[in-house]
């Protein structure tokens, strides 16, 4: 069974700091997604990573994928308050999407 594990589950950080969220998964897949969810809202697609070594950056967020290690990271650079949200990774295996538990990020001024 495909399992997706994220850590940490809760992350409180100061503005301006850097941090990394990790996403491990148990089954071979070459499609990994990162989503952002604000409280009470739907999921917003951040990144789609399709191949080993893929790296994508958008603003202060950068995601990478290592399919051999079955690991993806979401790196936050110089965090700002607006980044406060829950971040989910999800792995797609033959159109069966499994989500991690989510990382609730709080950025404090």
């Amino acid at each position, binding site marked *: 069974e495909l399992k997706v594990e994220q850590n940490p589950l809760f992350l409180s950080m100061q503005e301006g700091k850097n941090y990394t969220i990790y996403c491990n998964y148990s089954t071979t897949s070459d*499609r990994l*997604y990162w*989503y952002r969810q604000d409280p009470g*809202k*739907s*999921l*917003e*697609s951040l990144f*789609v990573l*399709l191949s080993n070594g893929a790296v994508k950056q958008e603003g202060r967020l950068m995601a990478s994928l290592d399919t051999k290690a079955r690991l993806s990271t979401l790196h936050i650079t110089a965090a700002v308050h607006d980044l406060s949200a829950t971040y*989910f990774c*999800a792995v*797609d295996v*033959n*159109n*069966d*999407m*499994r*989500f*991690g*538990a*989510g990382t609730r990020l709080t950025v404090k001024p």
Partner: protein
Amino acid sequence: EPEVTQTPSHQVTQMGQEVILRCVPISNHLYFYWYRQILGQKVEFLVSFYNNEISEKSEIFDDQFSVERPDGSNFTLKIRSTKLEDSAMYFCASQDGLAGDNEQFFGPGTRLTVL
């Protein structure tokens, strides 16, 4: 910009009643999905749908659930006899299926409350 829409935004029902949740995927998309999210928990995959049939379903998607694309635009999720534990946000998503990045676009969700 095209978006996935869902109706209703909030549905309240009595235990044992049938509910139908509706979604209008993005036009020209080929793959459709239903997910649920119990309050404060992670998003759970229910079912994927392609070419007018279910392509994958999770262990959650038992005989109480069914999906349909009745008219080429709507994509519905039916729960035949709701249980208290069906209370959750239900998200629909659609996917082009042809574009290289296979991005899924999520609707705003339907909050289902079973009393």
